[in-house]
């Protein structure tokens, strides 16, 4: 045993594996578990039944449990917990685990397993869960002996939340859950090798300050790492931006890391980012990347990405540095810790940017901003999706809502039109792009924040992928609002087919859609619909007034496209601003990109 029990009452009392699990979860600060029962986890469900500290939320599909746990984790900064049975229960979580891995979300997923003596025998509901989930978790365990169970559970939480966070699976055979063994608390467990570097190298931080101080056209590019690091990182990032007076852009994952309504914020960058953010990336001379990973949605074509800049990259994950973009200075460490040191060094050195150059740089940015790249043509008969979101934002911003999304055009419009002034308010599937994420994620958010306004900005296609979770919403009386931008198309697919496949709309039309109002009603929710622009405000008012789950079916323009757009394989300066721009893949290579 690696973590040794240190005497006392607790160590001498033997508990069943199932009781150990409940106790370990509580000791780790978990108050909720999202799950679905089955044969292999019945002993654990029995232990949950016999107590009332750990709350169980019954989802309707294990994928829903995984996304709900993600929503919980992203909106609280805590580890989300899932409990599912063996075989199909475990395999149903794979999409959610992969999603959490791609977006660095801390999750502990407990899976039941057939009893140890049957493992490898193709027993009923047996799946090689550790084998299947190895590539889609940060780490995973199969616990063969109840004596290891408490240690493994505490390790799992430690691994999930430390360093670059991620999902951890603990596979627990039924006999292990039934057997009796010792319990040890979190304080008695120390992982034997995993120690991510938190503090940045002092010499490199000094060099970074010198490099940044010499900039004429500086830019901060901040990502989800700032949010994962915690609210302190967002605060320090804001401090640093204010002290230096430089422009700042956020990735899709980083929205809320810097106040979205602040004049120094120049919008999201990337494929559907703002004109000013992408051009600032192309033109900056020193880039400070904090907790972003040079994702291909952000860089566009690599060989022409931000060529004029020297690059500083702060990341907790050493493998993120120099992975796709070579940087001049890589600093491994936690965003908050490194930013704190960076600010200290900046202030101690009384650094000040070249104010004349900075002024000229802001003037340039103002010119790009003046293009008003998010403008769209208003219509008085058809609801423009952008308009619906603009109204939703304006009418809800005072309540500082938590927004989740599905995946598609609506997701990009939500990212463009919502402004987040705080971290942990924006939950979207960035890395994996998982349709069906938003509705279950909203459940997790609403469970964690019962009194908050939680809205799933949805597409009609995506929301059907986990629509069964409306039943969970009903059971727990969660006043989640599902705001569907219904274009009767897989809009994002349709957009690519229009631009890159000659307008041949293969299988992207959503035929035979349900009547979402009736669907809401059958799930004990309220259904609302708007079909004309002048109905939008009324619909939103009504939705906000009703303290119950609502599905708002907003019938929007079926052929609207998301702009700006940097076609895959194109460079930032090849951005298309609107329908009048011809959009085509920039290169043959671009055509194969997704």
């Amino acid at each position, binding site marked *: 045993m690696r973590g040794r029990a240190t005497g006392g009452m607790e160590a001498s009392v033997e508990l069943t594996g199932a009781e150990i699990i409940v106790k370990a979860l509580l000791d780790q600060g978990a108050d909720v578990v999202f799950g679905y029962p089955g044969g292999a986890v019945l002993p654990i469900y029995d232990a949950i039944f016999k107590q009332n500290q750990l709350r169980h939320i019954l989802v309707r599909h294990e994928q829903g449990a995984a996304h709900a746990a993600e929503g919980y984790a992203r909106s609280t900064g805590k580890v989300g917990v899932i409990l599912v049975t063996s075989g199909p229960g475990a395999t149903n979580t794979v999409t959610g685990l992969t999603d959490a891995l791609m977006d660095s979300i801390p999750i502990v997923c407990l899976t039941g397993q057939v009893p140890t003596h049957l493992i490898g025998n193709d027993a009923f509901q047996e799946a090689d869960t550790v084998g299947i989930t190895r590539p889609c978790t940060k780490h995973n365990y199969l616990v063969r002996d109840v004596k290891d169970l408490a240690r493994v559970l505490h390790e799992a939480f430690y691994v999930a939340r430390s360093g670059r966070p991620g999902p951890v699976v603990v596979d627990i055979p039924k006999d292990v859950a039934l057997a009796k063994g010792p319990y040890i608390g979190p304080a008695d467990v120390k992982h034997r090798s995993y120690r991510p570097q938190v503090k940045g190298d002092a010499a490199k931080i000094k060099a970074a300050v010198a490099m940044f101080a010499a900039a004429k056209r500086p830019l901060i590019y901040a990502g989800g790492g700032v949010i994962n690091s915690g609210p302190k990182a967002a605060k320090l990032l804001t401090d640093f931006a204010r002290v230096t007076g430089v422009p700042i852009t956020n990735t899709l994952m980083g929205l809320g890391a810097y106040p979205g309504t602040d004049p120094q914020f120049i919008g999201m960058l990337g494929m559907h980012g703002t004109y000013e953010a992408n051009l600032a990336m192309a033109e900056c001379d020193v880039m400070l990347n904090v907790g972003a990973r040079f994702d291909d949605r952000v860089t566009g074509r*690599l060989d022409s990405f931000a060529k004029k800049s020297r690059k500083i990259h702060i990341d907790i994950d050493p493998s993120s540095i120099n992975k796709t973009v070579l940087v001049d200075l890589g600093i491994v460490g936690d965003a908050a810790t490194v930013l704190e040191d960076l600010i200290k060094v900046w202030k101690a050195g009384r650094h000040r940017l070249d104010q004349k150059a900075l002024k000229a740089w802001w003037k340039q940015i103002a010119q790009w901003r003046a293009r008003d790249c998010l403008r769209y043509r208003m219509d008085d008969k058809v609801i423009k999706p952008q308009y619906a979101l603009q109204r939703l934002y304006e009418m809800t911003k005072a309540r500082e809502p938590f927004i989740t999304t599905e995946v598609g055009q609506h997701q990009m419009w939500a990212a463009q039109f919502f402004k987040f002034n705080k971290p942990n308010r924006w939950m979207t599937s960035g890395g994996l792009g998982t349709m069906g994420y938003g509705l279950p994620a909203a459940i997790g958010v609403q469970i964690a924040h019962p009194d908050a306004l939680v809205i799933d900005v949805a597409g009609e296609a995506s929301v059907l992928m986990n629509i069964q979770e409306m039943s969970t919403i009903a059971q727990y009386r969660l006043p989640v609002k599902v705001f569907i931008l219904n274009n009767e198309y897989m809009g994002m697919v349709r957009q690519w087919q229009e631009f890159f496949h000659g307008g041949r709309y293969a299988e992207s039309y959503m035929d035979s859609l349900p009547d979402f109002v009736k669907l809401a009603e059958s799930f004990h929710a309220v259904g609302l619909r708007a079909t004309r622009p002048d109905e939008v405000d009324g619909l939103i008012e009504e939705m906000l007034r009703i303290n119950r789950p609502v599905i708002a079916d907003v019938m929007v323009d079926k052929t609207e496209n998301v702009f700006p757009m940097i076609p895959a394989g194109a460079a930032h300066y090849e951005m298309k601003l609107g329908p009048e721009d011809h959009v085509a893949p920039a290169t043959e290579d671009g055509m194969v990109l997704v």
Partner: protein
Amino acid sequence: MAGLASTNERHTIGVVVDNEAGVLARVIGLFSGRGYNIDSLTVAEVDPANALSRITVVTTGTPQIIEQIKAQLERLVVVHRVNDLTTGGPHVERELALVKVVASGNRRVESLRIADIFRARVVDSTTKSFVFEVTGTSEKLNAFISLMEPLGLVELSRTGIVAIARGTTGL
């Protein structure tokens, strides 16, 4: 990687890992999942008291890819140390092969003569065959094998490379 092309290098990397189920699968999965090359891979427990194994992996890639491979290996929760022997200074690489040769007459005698030159040992013999054990660098083994081929090589088993840094310091 577009725009970052440079020439391939071959690196020998020592990795100290927990000796537990699934560790090898994790390392191999990392290489296959991310499309890295494995030229050779060996693994065995080296520290039973602390349940540690050592993996020696030989891989090729651009300097940037090699850096990625090391960073990705270090990121695995079960990995304790990653040591690039190729950049870490002088080191020794060895491989062992067992080579079965079926031959008679002159060819049988010739195989023994070559074995002698390569300091290969006969570890099994019948009236019609020998099994030679030969140790050395991979190049030496390749040379030995190519000489044995025309003489009646029927079966070959190689360990893959193990490596260690020269000098006084331990990993």
